């Protein structure tokens, strides 16, 4: 082929060169269309994936109800649940009390906490264009924990309003952390991974120091409870507190889900996203706000549980692809299931004593993450 100026060229040559690019016959075209359909997310794949994951989550949660100091069979726990659903209570036998008042709230809480942390991780990773982003690693969880600790110290946390004020204080702390992290990272234009992680490490150090200061001036009985909470625990709160948590999560989760298509485009970078019609500033603020809200709500009840927000989205993305419309809800389901499983380990491995679930997730998730990094040598991130 020859290079010719397009203005001075004869029309005959124009047709000739155009013919080179009109690819193939109708048969070929239909197969090509099909191949593209399979390479993008379809409604069918979304429904099938989500249903499969939902069924798997339910199975894991059912299995988790079975484990504990008291041996209660799967059939028994299923019977108790059904009875409770039908009549509103499950009688007074000890198995019913254990399942409904001890294990079920704990499993539900674990599912919500894990799901929220994974969803926040997905949002932060897209926004910061960084597959290592995680509310725990970036110091957002410790910001939220600091907010909650201040609330407890000032006595706001022990009043009747505790249900709503504690998550709110944690939300403010988390938002503060997220804004600082983003300011540090954004001052270099393109977000360098190491700068971001470093900012998180330093924030974590500062917030931890402040939390330890607060713990040290508290009365020893309360400070022990706070230490246990900080290590990450799913010891279930009261049902009213759970309902409040559900409200926070439903609101935050819906807002985040509503932004998923914009999150897809934001991974291209802010300028590209804007050129494709995304109102970048609005989306950014929404995601920051929602992430802080979810993190605050979760941290205020379960303390600092790490690595769920980093490992789960990462692993899910490898399997189902990067489209956030599926990645976000799928990660939430997988994250919830993962934390329920981790908590089952935490309360059975040294039964009747239990270890904080944050330790289990860090010990399980950390090495898994290192393995993922090594396995993908070309590295999403490094």
């Amino acid at each position, binding site marked *: *082929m*020859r*290079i*010719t*100026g*397009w*203005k*001075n060229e004869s029309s005959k040559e*124009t047709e000739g*060169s*155009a013919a*080179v*690019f009109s*690819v193939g016959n109708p048969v070929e*075209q239909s197969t*090509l*269309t099909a*191949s*593209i*359909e*399979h*390479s*993008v*997310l*379809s*409604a069918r794949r979304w429904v099938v994936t989500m249903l499969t994951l939902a069924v798997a989550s339910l199975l894991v949660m059912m299995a988790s109800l079975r484990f504990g100091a008291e041996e209660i069979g799967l059939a028994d726990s299923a019977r108790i649940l059904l009875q409770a659903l039908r009549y509103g209570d499950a009688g007074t036998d000890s198995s019913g009390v254990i399942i409904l008042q001890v294990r079920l709230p704990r499993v539900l809480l674990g599912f919500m906490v894990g799901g929220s942390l994974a969803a926040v991780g997905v949002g932060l990773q*897209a926004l910061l*264009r*960084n*597959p290592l982003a995680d509310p725990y690693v970036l110091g957002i969880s410790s910001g939220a924990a600091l907010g909650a600790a201040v609330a407890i110290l000032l006595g706001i946390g022990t009043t009747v309003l505790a249900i709503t004020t504690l998550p709110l204080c944690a939300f403010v702390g988390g938002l503060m952390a997220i804004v600082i992290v983003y300011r540090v990272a954004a*001052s*270099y*234009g393109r977000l360098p991974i190491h700068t971001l992680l470093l900012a998180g490490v330093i924030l974590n150090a500062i917030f931890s120091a402040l939390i330890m200061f607060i713990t040290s001036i508290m009365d020893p009985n309360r400070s022990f409870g706070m230490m246990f909470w900080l290590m990450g625990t799913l010891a279930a709160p009261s049902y009213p507190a759970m309902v409040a948590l559900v409200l926070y999560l439903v609101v935050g989760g819906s807002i985040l*889900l*509503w932004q*998923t*298509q914009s999150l*897809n*485009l934001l*991974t*291209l*970078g802010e*300028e*590209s996203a*804007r*050129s*494709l*019609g*995304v*109102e*970048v500033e609005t989306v950014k603020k929404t995601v920051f706000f929602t992430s802080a809200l979810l993190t605050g709500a979760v941290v205020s009840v379960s303390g600092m549980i790490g690595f769920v927000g980093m490992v789960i989205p990462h692993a899910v*993305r*490898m399997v189902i*692809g*990067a*489209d956030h*419309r599926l990645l976000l809800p799928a990660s939430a389901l997988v994250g919830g299931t993962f934390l329920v499983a981790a908590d089952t380990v935490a309360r059975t491995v040294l039964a009747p004593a239990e270890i904080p679930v944050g330790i289990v997730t860090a010990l399980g998730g950390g090495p898994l993450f290192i393995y993922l990094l090594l396995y993908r040598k*070309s590295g*999403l*991130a490094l």
Partner: protein
Amino acid sequence: MRETEGLGNRLAYRVERLRFRYRHDRDRQFGKGNEWALKGLRFEVQSGEVLGVIGPNGSGKTSLLKLLSRVLRPQEGEIYLFGSQLAEMSQDAIARLVALVPQDSRQIFPFTIAETVMMGRFPHHRSRGRLFGFGWEGPEDIRLATQAMKETDVAHLAHRSIDNVSGGERQRAIIARALTQQPQVLLLDEPTAFLDLNHQLEICMILRRLNEKQGLTVVLVSHDLNLASQYCDRLMLLKEGEIFRLGPPEEVIRPDVLAAVYRCEVLVDRHPMSGLPRVTLPARSPVRSHITEQ
């Protein structure tokens, strides 16, 4: 629907007194904060025209493209897109008229090529209110994306992950994404920088075909003076944020003009086929230095 009413307007862009400077903290720290990247540009782009923007590094070419797509906003001056004030339009309304192919399109997340191209449908989805952009792509979207991918020769890569293909393949996918936007104006920043010779030619052919058959307006930034000379109706030569020369290639690609802007001597002759100006860097003296030393 103000923006579609203006489509009959023969002017794609009218730019007046455009002044712009970056406001990063980092730049201010180095005392560059007060320097204008663009110093009062005034020009027009005809609908259906191919305008090439050339100039040395740091002359404001990329900034200009970003201003024209409102990725950045100017401090002073006005930009009119098909008669409407760009500053007043919504971001997705702009994206339905203007597509930008940026210089740097690295992606760290494993989106498939097809998913990346399909992102070009985003501004159209928003307008139709499909669940605020959460809705699925329809058969029409898939048809448009397929067509664009065939034109840029990436259809066979549909399932491949964008973080796992060569720079040239990625660049062609990004151009396919821009075509999938179905824009009236295509802005390209160094579109051929990563491409090998045959794909450079292919991209130029595609641009030319879209320009001739669909009346697509093209504004392209290029370091390649020969490519700009061959394929553009008019050239805008920028120097330190100002328009040094704006006109047909014959008036811009001249030894005296280029020497004044680039501060080096070049040879300009005629392309053997098109008769358009062609730039050649001066060769070394034909007598090799090490031979004369001996």
